[in-house]
């Protein structure tokens, strides 16, 4: 199998799997308990929190463990009353809550999917704006947001607003310590960087008050109730440390592989458009739009050939709706129907990209022959 869907989910790192194992049937106590067995589990969480805080560049007290990136996003948006602003290219976990509120404003992007800073400033000028959410890395097309520029606008125009970034796609590609000082809140999801599914992080800078989405036992300093997912937390922390330690090397390796993949597609086929310039996006993203094909059909052929890819984000590709990100970018609807997202990750090899290229080229030729 050739797996090039790492932006949807990347395989767990072996060390993360190993680190989790003791917390299933071994140290299984509820970490909020008062006995020594509970303290053992609690200690694992405490140490994981320190590790996570170190990589994210925040204080340990700023780290809130959640169940996923969507919960982290929803918590910030639901927990801050007032006007809300986001970019049209946001993940649905941000976009839908903001579209659903009466005082939500969605601002446009430039052709690379980057939020338009002038439109952002105009939206932030509304006096009731309480929260602004702009993603660090786009999950579909890989565009890196200039968060320094975003923060400059938000702090200047809406200094009262909580600035949140959905950084779910960032940990493999960006040094998160450079993002943390710019924003008030960040969302992460472990399974995007080699941790398990079902565990995420929300960071909240000191002094940022967010009403909890889930109330109950008061875990996570009353910010997120529910018994701690000890194994998940340990797995998340271990994966994050590994990701951070290998990032510089992986950036070089995977950028070269990504370039080789895209170059081979554009070399072999006419009408393959690279959706976002390489210097504007993360190293693992190989998003292209292929003229004259429908990606629904293409993905079927790739799947038959054991190549795992996607058309848009994982949530959307079940129903194959046209991508809202490409629409925001102004990509022609016919061209957008040929969108193909190939995303690389820590297990991707030379052989993977070479085989994927061969399979995609064959499939596109076949589809074009049969439709002409």
């Amino acid at each position: 199998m050739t797996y090039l869907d790492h932006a949807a989910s990347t395989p767990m790192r072996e060390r993360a799997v190993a680190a989790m194992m003791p917390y299933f049937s071994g140290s299984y106590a509820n970490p909020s308990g008062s006995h020594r067995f509970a303290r053992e589990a609690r200690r694992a969480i405490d140490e994981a929190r320190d590790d996570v805080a170190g990589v994210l560049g925040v204080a340990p007290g700023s780290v809130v463990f959640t169940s996923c990136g969507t919960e982290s996003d929803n918590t910030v948006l639901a927990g801050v009353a007032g006007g809300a602003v986001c970019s049209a290219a946001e993940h649905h976990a941000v976009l839908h809550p903001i579209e659903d509120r009466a005082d939500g404003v969605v601002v446009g992007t430039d052709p690379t999917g980057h939020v338009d800073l002038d439109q952002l400033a105009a939206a932030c000028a509304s006096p009731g704006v309480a929260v602004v959410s702009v993603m660090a890395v786009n999950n579909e097309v890989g565009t890196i947001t200039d968060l320094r520029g975003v923060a400059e606008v938000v702090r200047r125009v809406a200094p009262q607003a909580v600035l949140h970034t959905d950084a779910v796609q960032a940990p493999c590609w960006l040094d998160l310590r450079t993002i943390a000082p710019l924003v008030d809140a960040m969302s992460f999801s472990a399974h995007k960087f080699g941790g398990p599914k079902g565990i995420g992080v929300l960071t909240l800078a000191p002094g940022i008050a967010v009403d909890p989405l889930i109330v109950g036992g008061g875990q996570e300093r009353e910010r997120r109730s529910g018994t701690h997912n000890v194994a998940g937390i340990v797995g998340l922390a271990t994966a994050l440390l590994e990701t951070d330690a290998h990032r510089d090397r992986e950036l070089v390796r995977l950028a070269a592989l990504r370039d080789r993949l895209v170059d081979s597609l554009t070399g072999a086929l006419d009408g393959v458009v690279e959706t976002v310039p390489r210097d504007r996006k993360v190293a693992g993203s190989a998003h292209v739009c292929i003229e004259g094909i429908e990606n629904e059909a293409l993905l079927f052929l790739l799947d038959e050939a054991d190549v795992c890819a996607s058309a848009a984000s994982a949530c959307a590709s079940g129903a194959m709706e046209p991508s809202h990100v490409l629409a925001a970018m102004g990509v022609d609807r016919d061209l957008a129907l040929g969108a193909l997202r190939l995303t690389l990750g820590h297990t991707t090899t030379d052989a993977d990209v070479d085989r994927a290229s061969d399979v995609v080229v064959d499939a596109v030729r076949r589809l074009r022959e049969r439709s002409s």
Partner: protein
Amino acid sequence: MLAMSGGVDSSVAGALLLDAGHDVVGVTMKLWGGDSDTGCCSVSDVDDARRVAQQLDIDHLVFNFGDDFDRHVVDPYVRDHTLGVTPNPCIECNRHVKFDRLLTRADQLGFDAVATGHHARIGRTNDGRLTLERGADPAKDQSYVVHMLDQHALARTLFPVGSIDKAEVRRIAADRGLRTASKPDSQDVCFITSTGGRETFLGDRIEFRPGRVVDTSGVELGRVESVEMVTIGQRRGIGLPGGGPKRYVVDVDVPGTTVTVGDERDLLDDALTVGAVSWTDGPVHGDVLVQASAHGATQRATLSGASPVDVDVDDVDGAVNVDVVWHTPQRRIAPGQSVVFYDAADTRVLGGGIAR
């Protein structure tokens, strides 16, 4: 049993106890359930205490003494303000919670002693009596706030950092990599937030009453919004215009909603009555040094009515009253403040009580 506040002093106290060969269990007391951003009651301080215990590899428990804290510290604090009394809640917490409730719990559980991170020392005289001495670091001495310890309590109390100075405490913490090594000292009352302050805290619990500000002959000079917020000795915030002679609050009559101001001389007293007196090792009379604030200078005075015969044990509160006669007139002590007696060398606590 080590009482761990989450601060550097109790952290290092734990390290020193382990060095001395003690079998140590860390305990953090959950005292205040409301808003807190400082002191020993915030969740982050409990986290810090637990993390230090993990670093020291000792067990760490959390005891919820919230009811005791409300009953002995918070409720009296609120009530006293309605009576024109300015209490020191940290001392009442030490008296009723740390060195009573916790000490009792430690006894029940079979611990030999309770240790805390206070800067004070416990000594022993040639005839085997225990003494309470000032801490080695004059700037950080906390003997004033633990003055209520008697022989029974002293015998079961340890102050591991009392014999070293604060710089040494921080150095030890840094050497051992304790996460509290550079944590700032807490200065404030733990149940009062730095953002809301005393006024917000009290305002949520009592109805402030406006009052008249009068001079010593009874002539009205102005008004205050809340007599409960006024303290003897105060100069600012009493609604009087600037300029002119310095005027101080010399009396607060909360039930009568009247604040009396006067000049500095009107504030001077020859004597003071101290109630609810406790003694480190039995009643003392004669010349002593008296300290009436946490880091205030001591003043010479003579204790009268302090001999066992003259002590008025039938005071309305059922507590011991002592008369303090200043050798030179002193500024009036606000009722509710703790007044602590030291020996002539100004090193040893003899006893103390609360200004009436």
